[in-house]
C-alpha cells in the first residue's frame, strides 16, 4: 500500500468508528452526561458544600476535573472494547483482516475512534460542569496533552480487552472489576494527601492517579504528584500498551487461526 492508500484506510476506520457511536448516541453520549450531572449535583453541590476545601480548592472545583477525566477514561475504553469485540463476534473484523491494511493502521484507527468518543463525552461533560463551577484553565498544553494521551491509553486497553474477550461478559468484567475501582481509588474524589502514607504509596501504582492529577494540574495548577513524572509514566504506558496491542493484532490466535 502506498502512504496515500494507508491514509485512506486509516480515515475509513476512523469515520466508521465515529459513525458507529453517533448512530447509537442514546447509548453512547447521553448516559455519561446524565451520570456526571448527577455526580456534580450530589457530590459537588450537596455533599461537597459540607466537605469544605480539598487540596486548597472548593470541593466542586476539585472534583470537576476528576469527573471529566473519569468520563474520558470509561468512554474511550468502552468505545473500542464494544466496537472491536462486536466486529469480532459478528466476524466482520474479517473485512479488515483480509484487506492489505497494516495492523498498526487498524490499531491507530480504532484508537482514534475511541479518542473521538472520549473527547466528545469529555467535552459534553465539561459543558455541563459550567453550570456548576467556573472553569478556568491553568495550562492549555498540559490539559490538551493529558486528555489526549489518556484517551489513547484507555482506547488501547479496550482493544486488548476486546481481542482477549470470548463473550460479551468478558468485555464488562474488566471495566467492572478493574477500571471502576481504579478510577474511584485514583484520586477523582479525594486528594491522596488525605491517605495514610502507606496507602498513598500504594496509590502510586494506579495509572488513573497520574492521568487525573495531571489533568487537574492542567485545569487548576494543583497536583498531588509531579506533573512531568506523571506525563512520562502515561507515555510509557501508551508505548508499552500500544506495542502489546499491535503484537496481539498481528499474532493472536483469537483473530487468526
Amino acid at each position: 500500500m502506498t502512504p496515500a492508500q494507508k491514509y485512506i484506510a486509516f480515515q475509513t476506520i476512523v469515520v466508521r468508528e465515529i459513525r458507529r457511536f453517533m448512530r447509537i448516541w442514546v447509548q453512547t453520549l447521553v448516559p455519561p452526561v446524565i451520570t456526571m450531572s448527577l455526580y456534580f449535583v450530589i457530590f459537588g453541590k450537596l455533599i461537597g458544600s459540607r466537605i469544605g476545601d480539598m487540596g486548597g480548592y472548593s470541593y466542586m472545583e476539585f472534583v470537576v476535573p476528576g469527573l471529566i477525566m473519569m468520563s474520558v477514561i470509561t468512554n474511550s475504553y468502552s468505545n473500542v472494547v464494544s466496537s472491536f469485540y462486536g466486529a469480532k463476534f459478528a466476524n466482520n473484523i474479517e473485512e479488515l483482516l483480509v484487506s492489505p491494511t497494516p495492523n498498526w493502521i487498524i490499531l491507530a484507527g480504532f484508537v482514534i475512534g475511541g479518542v473521538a468518543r472520549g473527547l466528545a463525552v469529555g467535552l459534553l461533560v465539561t459543558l455541563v460542569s459550567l453550570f456548576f463551577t467556573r472553569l478556568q484553565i491553568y495550562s492549555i498544553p498540559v490539559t490538551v496533552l493529558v486528555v489526549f494521551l489518556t484517551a489513547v491509553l484507555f482506547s488501547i486497553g479496550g482493544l486488548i480487552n476486546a481481542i482477549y474477550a470470548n463473550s460479551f461478559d468478558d468485555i464488562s468484567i474488566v471495566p467492572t472489576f478493574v477500571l471502576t475501582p481504579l478510577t474511584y481509588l485514583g484520586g477523582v474524589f479525594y486528594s491522596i494527601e488525605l491517605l495514610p502514607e502507606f496507602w498513598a504509596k500504594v496509590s502510586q501504582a494506579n495509572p488513573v492517579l497520574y492521568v487525573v492529577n495531571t489533568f487537574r494540574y492542567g485545569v487548576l495548577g494543583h497536583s498531588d504528584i509531579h506533573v512531568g513524572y506523571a506525563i512520562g509514566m502515561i507515555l510509557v504506558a501508551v508505548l508499552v500498551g500500544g506495542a502489546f496491542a499491535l503484537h496481539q493484532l498481528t499474532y493472536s490466535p483469537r483473530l487468526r487461526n
Partner: protein
Amino acid sequence: MNIPALEIRNLEKTYPGGLQALKGIDLTVKEGEFVALLGPNGAGKSTTISILCSLVQKTAGKVSVCGYDIDTDFPTAKQQLGIVPQEFNFNSFEKVQDILVTQAGYYGVPAHIARDRADHYMKKLGLWEKRTTVARMLSGGMKRRLMIARALVHEPRILVLDEPTAGVDIELRRSMWQFLKEKNAEGTTIILTTHYLEEAEALCKRVAIIDKGELVADMQTRDLLKRLQVETFVLDVQGDLPKDFALPDYEAKVIDEHTLEVTLDKQKQHTANDLFVALSAQGIVVQSLRNKANRLEELFVRLLEQGRAA
C-alpha cells in the same frame, strides 16, 4: 514468462488441537482461468481460501498471488485478491452502500471512486433498490450478492468465492453464473468452491478436487466428466414388478415391488433407450426415474475407487 495468478506449493495446515486439514496441496492457476475447487464437507477448501487471505496461518508450504509471496509481501498479495467467504460476515447493522464503500476504503480506494464502483456493482448484482437498506434486512440471496459486490470494489485480479451459490435459487444461480462468466471474460481470474458438479460444468474449464486435505484430481472438466461413466438410476414402475423378470446385461437391484435400481455403464455401451426396450419387452412400464446419488457424490466414489485400485 507468465506469472501465475495463484501458486500453491505443498501447503499444509494443522489446526491447534492437532487436526491436519491440509496435507500438502499443490495448485497453480493461470491468469484468466476459471477454476472450480470441489470436495466433500470438511475437505479443506475453506481452509485453503482462509490461508490466502490471512485468516488462517499455514503450517508449511508456499503461496504466491500474482507473484507476490505471502511470506514476504502479504499486503500486496492481498491487494490482488477479492474474497467471498462461505459465511456472511458483514456488519448487519450497516447499509449496503456503506458496507461497499467502507470495504473499498480498507484497500485504499478513494471515496469518490469507491462510491462509483459500489453503484456499478449494486446495479449489476440487483442490489440497487436496496442500497440504503441495512444488511440484516436483505434476503439470503441478496446477502450473497452483497458479498460478491464487496469482494469486487477494489477491482482485484483474482476473485475467490467459497460456495457462492449455497442457498440460492435456480434462477438467481443462473444470473450469478452469467455475471461471473462476464467478469472472467473481462480478465478476472476466478476460483470457486462448490458442491454442485453442474456449477463446475457450467463455468469452469478446469476442476481441482480436494478430499481429506489432499488434492485427488486436477484436470479439464471435460476429462473429469468422462470418468463419470457409470450412473445409477432409480426407476419407479407402474404396477408390480413381474416375479420372473431379468436384466442380464445390467447391474440391477430390486428395491421393492415397484422400485428398481439400474446402473448404466457407458463402457458397456449402455444407453437408457436399450434399457427401456429391455424393460418393455417384459411388460414393465417405467413411470419415472431419477439419479440415485448426486452426480458429484457418484464421481467422488468412482475417483476414490480408482485411486485405491491404482
